[in-house]
């Protein structure tokens, strides 16, 4: 069964491009254009991965959503891949530093512009990691 991916981003051009890349790679993709709709969808259906834009609306609304997800018992295990043009926003980041340490806890972060091949690699790695983690917890639960 192909993985279910949720994408939350307020840029329709970007969304349609990413969606087409993911669908060509056989993923099922749902889309929301703002954090509110996105959160609703996440609660109504199970997703294997979330692609999340950080800079939405009036500021870093994606950050607030990421924090909310991390606190939600049902959603906190879902891997989140943050896509962002953010580096230009947080005053300055140095090479080798994935994201401001006090900013938000995240599984992965990629910067816009996103290369299709790179995106697909990240997505499949995250899905695999989540799968392994789940298998491990199930085992532990039984033992």
């Amino acid at each position: 069964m192909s993985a279910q991916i949720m994408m939350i981003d307020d840029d329709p051009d970007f969304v349609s491009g990413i969606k087409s890349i993911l669908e060509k790679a056989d993923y099922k993709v749902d889309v929301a254009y703002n954090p509110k709709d996105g959160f609703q969808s996440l609660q109504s259906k199970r997703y294997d991965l979330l692609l999340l834009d950080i800079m939405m609306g009036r500021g870093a609304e994606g950050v607030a959503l990421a924090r909310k997800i991390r606190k939600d018992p049902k959603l906190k295990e879902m891997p989140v891949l943050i896509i962002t043009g953010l580096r230009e926003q947080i005053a300055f980041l140095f090479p080798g530093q994935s994201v401001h340490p006090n900013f938000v806890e995240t599984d992965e972060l990629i910067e816009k512009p996103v290369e299709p091949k790179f995106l697909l690699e990240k997505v499949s790695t995250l899905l695999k990691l989540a799968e392994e983690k789940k298998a491990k917890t199930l085992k532990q639960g039984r033992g």
Partner: protein
Amino acid sequence: MKDKAKILIVDDEEVVLDSCAQILKGGNYQIATATNGNLGLKLVKEFQPDLVYVDLKMPGISGFEVIERIRESDPTIVTIVITGYATVSSAVDAMKNGAYDFLPKPFTPDEFRLITRRGLDRRRLVLETIALRREKEMLRENFAAIVSHELKAPLGAVQQNLFFLADELSDRLTDEQKNRFERMKTNINDLINLILTWLRVLSVDVSKIRENFHPVAVPLVISKAVDGVQPQAIRKDIEIVTSISESLKPVDGDEGTLVETVINILGNAIKYSRPSSRIYIKAEGKENDVLVSVTDTGPGISKEEIPYIFNDFYTGKSAPAAEHGSGIGLAVARRIVEAHNGTISVESELGNGSTFVIRLPASKSELHGEITLETNGSVKS
């Protein structure tokens, strides 16, 4: 200073206090007086004067100490020494300790007014300089933000659409067309990188780097930097020779930016070296500092150029035509080193290569945990 200038006079002789106050009466001043050093210092806090006259010879704490303490609490306050015994030497001592001027007793009202005016001018200039410096910093940061928004974001969007298009059309494009897409992507990528480097110069935020300071092992920095430039070196058949003295102390800093700085200096050395030559990188302790030096056998830098090479956007005249840079690598390196309370300097002679020296204060703390070095055999620890 639109408000009345505030003047504090600290002297144990009431006569002096009275006459000073008398002389300045009617001028646009607010005056406070104290008959000893302790009272004076208390008033410095409460009254917040622009200018303080201090008698050197007072019972209790001395005028020297008063000046010292004022300077510690607010170095922008101008202090002027009143010296009763008119010995120039004690006035000079006081000025060495931060006093701006001295007033020898006895003095005429005109002398006192003149020195007061000069002192207040000085205070105004000091405050103005601080305000201007702050404004300059803000401009720099704002400019960085504007460049980032107005240039980088749209270019990023163009690049993103190119990625999408190339992907969506990939079954239908000829190889020649695919090549054209690749060239466009490369061009835009170069532009984005150029903007990023500019931003970098404008926005290296010293306080941000300092937030992450911790003891860093210099050999680790060097080995990472050498690894980083190895591909460039191999392309020109250049050997990088590392020597690190034993029991080198760590430095307090941010590993990432230090590695970047060394990469920068090494990259320059490779750029300016002849093919099949050698570059030497050395780390040693000296007094309470750690010195990292990079020596190349390239064309060297002329005396006239040396003062400018650490400036923004300066590109060397002796650079080979093919090696055009943006002229900001060394400027960024300098900012980073200075953020680490260090210095960067160069010794060079035309035709005889260059040696860049980064000097960083050694850390007072030890490294946390054990350092493991992944080396290619070139680093000893």
